[in-house]
Structures are given as C-alpha cells and as structure tokens.
C-alpha cells in the first residue's frame, strides 16, 4: 500500500511548511538583545496612558483597531496584531519600543515622527490592557539630556555638517561616543532625512555630507534639525535656519488666474466665454418674449 504513505508524507510536509512559516514570521523582528531589555524611564500611570491613547488613536488605530475589540484590519498582509492579545503583551517594553522605532513591511517606522517619550506613552496605554503587567522602571534619568551640548556646524568647503556632541558633567566635558546622530531638513509634510543615521566617533563627532540641490525659500534658507540619541543621556535635538538650499521663488499656484483657482481668480477667457454665452442666450430669449408681447398686442386690435 503505497498511497497512505504518500498522503501522510504530504501532510507532514505541509505541516512542516506551516510551522516554518510561523517560525520565520515570529522571528523576523530580530530585536537586538540590548534593545530587548530596555525599560521606560517614565512611570506608567493613568495620565501617561491617556496621553498614549490619543497618540495611539491618531497613528495606530487605523490598522491595529481598538485594543480588545478585535477590529484590526484583517485584509492586510501580515495582519496587524490585536495589541491586547497575549502574543503582543508577551513582548517586552524594549521590544515594543524597537518595533515602533524600526517598523517592518506595512508597519511604518515612527522613529522620525514620534519622540521616545511619546512612544513610551503609547506603550503605557497598551499595558493598560494587561492586568498581569508589572512595570520595571529604567534607572535612566531623562534630566541628564539637559547636560548634553549638541553643536552642528556647516562647513562650506566640504559641504558637510560637522556634528560635535558632549556632556557637561561635573568633572568636565565628556564626549558622547557611539551615540546615534541624524540630520533632517524640514519639509511641508514632515522631515526629510539627509544621509543615514551615523554613530559619533571616539571624539564625539560625526560628519554628514549635505546635498546642494535642496530647494529652500526665497533666500535659500532651510530649517535643519539635528537629532541625537544616546543610551545614557537620551534624546537631544537642535534646530537651525541656514541659507544652504537652492533659492526658490515660485509664485503660489493659487496666486495667479487659473482654471483651478477660486471664482475671483478665474481666467479672463473663461469669464468672457461664459458671459458671452449667457448674454447671447438672454438676448435671444428677450427677442422671443418681445415677439410674444407684440403678438398679444396685435391680437387685441
């Protein structure tokens, strides 16, 4: 009897494939160990949870649905998990933060749009759906970020930003080594990252080459944002306005007479043609009505 063996084999193969698929799916976040064990320095309470809820509703709800209600968007692939589920709640705080930071496939990265503090608020909100959750606070002191001095100087010759980061500790300046540095230019709908996120070198420095074709305002001014993240000192950012973009002086699309503009700024030729049409129509109608008037009068005689 060859047949049942064959069938069994195919079932086994199929089950193996399914297991493998699940395995690869679960494992693919690949959260680094040091990230996994990170904890929040903010104590989770009702206030942080309610702040987190507002952020969740604006950024997460459309795909993940209301936690506990199972209305996550199941037509997506992979399906965005229901975040009050055991699977999601079993992740550590650090893993959740990592996922928010990096994103994957349809899950966007919030690294550039939410600060770490806001991400912790979201996690605080989600932990409210887990009765067994006990928070482990991080010993990190957020006020330490105030000690950090972040300097970004634009070097015209090299066309690059030289970024220097150090902390003003009691015992003198301490260069921030291995901190993440990223450079952004503010655009209308968000921040445009320039080059990759770099790590500061042994002297707390990083150099990011700046492209010379970014459109600025009339005088070529751009708003440049430098962000730094250090495991010990937290997040720091500085903003500066520099005339390093391409001067652009285009009149707004809604300033001239155009088809797409409001009625007051309609093109003359449309105003003319439309009025011409309406006026000629009215003249014809008046002519006809006058004929009818004459008609009536002539019948009276």
């Amino acid at each position: 009897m060859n047949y049942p063996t064959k069938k069994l084999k195919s079932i086994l193969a199929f089950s193996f494939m399914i297991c493998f698929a699940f395995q690869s799916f679960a494992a693919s976040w690949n959260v680094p160990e040091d990230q996994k064990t990170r904890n929040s320095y903010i104590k989770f309470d009702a206030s942080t949870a309610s702040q987190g809820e507002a952020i969740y509703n604006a950024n997460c709800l459309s795909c993940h649905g209301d936690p506990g209600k199972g209305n996550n968007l199941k037509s997506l692939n992979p399906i965005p998990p229901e975040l009050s589920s055991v699977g999601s709640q079993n992740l550590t705080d650090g893993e959740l933060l990592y996922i928010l930071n990096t994103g994957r496939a349809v899950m966007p990265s919030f690294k550039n749009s939410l600060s770490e503090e806001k991400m912790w608020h979201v996690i605080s909100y989600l932990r409210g759906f887990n009765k067994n959750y006990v928070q482990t606070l991080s010993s990190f002191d957020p006020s330490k970020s105030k000690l950090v001095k972040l300097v970004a100087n634009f070097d015209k010759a090299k066309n690059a930003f030289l970024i220097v980061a150090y902390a003003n500790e009691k015992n003198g300046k301490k260069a921030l080594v291995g901190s993440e540095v990223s450079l952004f230019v503010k655009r209308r709908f968000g921040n445009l990252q320039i080059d990759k996120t770099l790590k500061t070198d042994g002297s707390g420095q990083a150099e990011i080459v700046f492209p010379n074709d970014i459109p600025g305002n009339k005088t070529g001014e751009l708003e440049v944002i430098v962000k730094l993240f250090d495991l010990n000192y937290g997040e720091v950012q500085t903003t500066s306005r520099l005339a390093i973009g391409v001067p652009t002086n285009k009149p707004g699309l809604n300033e001239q007479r155009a088809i797409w503009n409001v009625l007051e700024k309609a093109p003359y030729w449309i105003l003319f043609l439309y009025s011409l049409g309406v006026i000629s129509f009215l003249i014809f109608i008046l002519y006809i009505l006058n004929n009818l008037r004459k008609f009536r009068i002539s019948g009276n005689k």
Partner: protein
Amino acid sequence: MSERINSEKITADLLRPIRLNKGFMVWMGVLSISLLVCLFAYFLQLRDGMIVTGLGDYVSWGMYISNFVFFVASSLIGMLISGVLSLLKQKWAAPLARIAEIIALAFAAVAGLVIVMDMGRPDRLLNVFIHGRIQSPILWDVTVITSYMIVSALFLYIPLIPDLKICAQKLTNIPPFARKIYEFLSLNWSDTPVQRELIRKSTRTIAILIIPIALAIHTVTSWLFANTSRAGWDSTIFGPYFVAGAFVAGTAAVIIAMFIFRKVYHLEEYITEFHFDKIGQLLVLVSLLYLYFNVNEYMVPAYKMKRADAFHIHELFVGSHALLFWITQLGGLIIPIILLILKPFRKPIPMLVISTMVLIGSWLKRYIIVIPTMEHPYLPVQNVPLKFSVYTPTLIEILVTIAPMIMVLLIITVLAKVIPIIPIHETIEHQQEIASKKK
C-alpha cells in the same frame, strides 16, 4: 366645403383625447402610487444618508449619474426632430414634433432632480449657485440645462398657441377655469398675417437657437467625464460621442411614445406607417453614427493599450463587465441597426420592440460609461474590503433611480392630456396646402 369638413374632422380627432377618462385615471393612479413608493425610498436615503446606496469612496458616481446622463441624452431629441428636421424641411416629421418636444421638456425638467437625488446633502444645493466656480463644467452644465429647459418650453409653447385657441373654442366638456387658462395662454390668437409672421419668425429663431444649446448640454455633460484623465473617460471625442448616443436614445423614446399615443388616442390616420418607416430610417442613421463613434472610442485606446486603458478595456471586453457590455452593444445598437435596415421591421410593432431594446441599451450604455471607470482609479485600490471598490446598487438606490423615470412619464401623460399632441393648426394648414396644390 370638403376642406371645411376635413378641418373640422381633424380638429375633432385631435381634440378627442383631451378629456378625463377611466383609462387615464387608472394609469395616473398606478404612476402616482409607484412614485410614492420610490419617494419613500428617497426619504430613507435622506434620513439615513448615502450609506443606504451602493456608492462609496471609489465608486462615488453610480446609477444616479448614469441615470442623469441618460435623462440629458433623451432630452436631446427635441432639438433633432423639431429643430434639425424642420430646418431641413423634412415635412414628415411635423406631426412628431410636439411628441418630441414633450419628451425633451419632461426629461430636461427632471434631469436636474436626478442630480439632487445623487446629493448627500440636498439642503446645500444653493451653494452650487452661491459658490459655483465658473471654471467648473458642473456650473456650465447647470447653466446649459436650465437654458435648454427654457428654450424647450418655448419651443413647445409657441407653435402651440393657435392650438390653445382651438382648445379654448372647441373643447366643450372642460371647466370654465381651464377654458380661461387656454384663452390666456393663446395670447389673443386671431390668425392675422402679423401674428402668423411672428410665430414663424420666433419658431425659426428657436429652431436655430436650440441646436447649439442642445449640443452644449450634452457636450458639457460629456465634459464632466472627459475633462478628467481617468481611463475610459479621457477622450477627445466624448462630446460628439455623447450627442450621437443621445440621438439614438431620444429617437427610440419618440418611437415608443408614437406607438403608444397612436394606439391609445386612435391617431392611426395622423401617425401612419409611413411615419414609422421614416423615423425607423432616422434611427438607423443615428445608430450608425453612434456605432462609428463607438468603434473610434474603443479602437483607439485598444490599439495603444496604455496600462490603465488596457485594464479598463479588458474589464469591458472580457472581464467583469463583459456581459453587460456585449448585451448593450449588440442588443442596443448592432442588432437594432441590422433589423431596421430591413423594411419589414420598420412597421409599428417590430419597431416598438426594437426601440425598447435600444432605449434599455441606452440606459445600460450610460452605466457602462460611468461605473467601470470609477472602479478602476489610477491609484491602486488596496487594503479595503471588496465591497468598497466593486459597485453593487442597493434596492433603495434602484427605487430612487426609477422615481425620475416615473416623473417623466407623469409629465408626458399630463401634457399629452391637456394639449393636442399632434399640432392641429399645422395639420390643417398642411392639408390646405396639399388641396390648393391639387387645384
């Protein structure tokens, strides 16, 4: 003497339908009850919002807009028969002119309402006029349809003036107030040369004026689609394509009306088989014209197969809309052309059947023009339930779509009840002309 008898017979024959009889009451009752049912559906739509329809973010123009285009199309026939044919001195069409005008006026009057039915917030209708942008084809459409309605009403009214006088004088069984209305509307018609000349001049002016306006209403309606860049609408021939299609729909509507009036009002002597034969030829002519535009409209994008067009055409020819598409093209256009070329089919009963096919095909054609394009936007439809992107009309929507059709029937029925649907004065004049030629 025989002429006199003849004209009296004509007057009597053509005035006979103007009286309230049982058949009329029953028909009006049926129409009114059906209209009430449909208006209840509209009430539900007003109460609960557009969610009761199958419309959504992707297919936001559904049956209502198809219906609107169909209505505007059908109203164009007034221009073709009363305008173009009379200017071309096609005498045979004269007895059909008033039927065509009544149909035109009814469809044009209701077309605006069809748009209101498509509005989620009809209470904001006035904003179209207050904040309308002169750059938008929507405002042009509102303007030209209003103009066409006014011109159609005048075109119906002015040649009717002598007949209104005849109504006031010859109708015996009407209440005094109705007689007064006839009298008032006949504007002291006393058949003087001056008055004849004024009527002739005015009618001729309107016959000319109505041609650009009618072309404008359907061309502008086509621009509502063609002025976008969407696959299936982005076409330079949409204006004439729509106008040709409108002639097909309107001619079919007139044939159906001719048949029914002839039967119900016993007008066999006035609407003869000769008229059916002639208007059958007209239907073939306009259908061939429309077929030509159809070939153009599908051939050109199908040859180039640009990506979005290719997808659209594939859906129409062999995809999810293929059945409807081929029923429409074959049943509503190609088969009618083949049949009507043959003389035996240009008889009243076969023509009633064929015209009904054509008219249904004309409605479906508008559906085919509006909906498949809406289902295929340029940006990919993703991560939404299937029902968001595939349009299925609901029962309420179907009823609300039927409501304006009933209104058109009501308007036609009432108008055909209060005015002679075949011009009396003109028919008598025509007879006299023939008689004087014989002498």
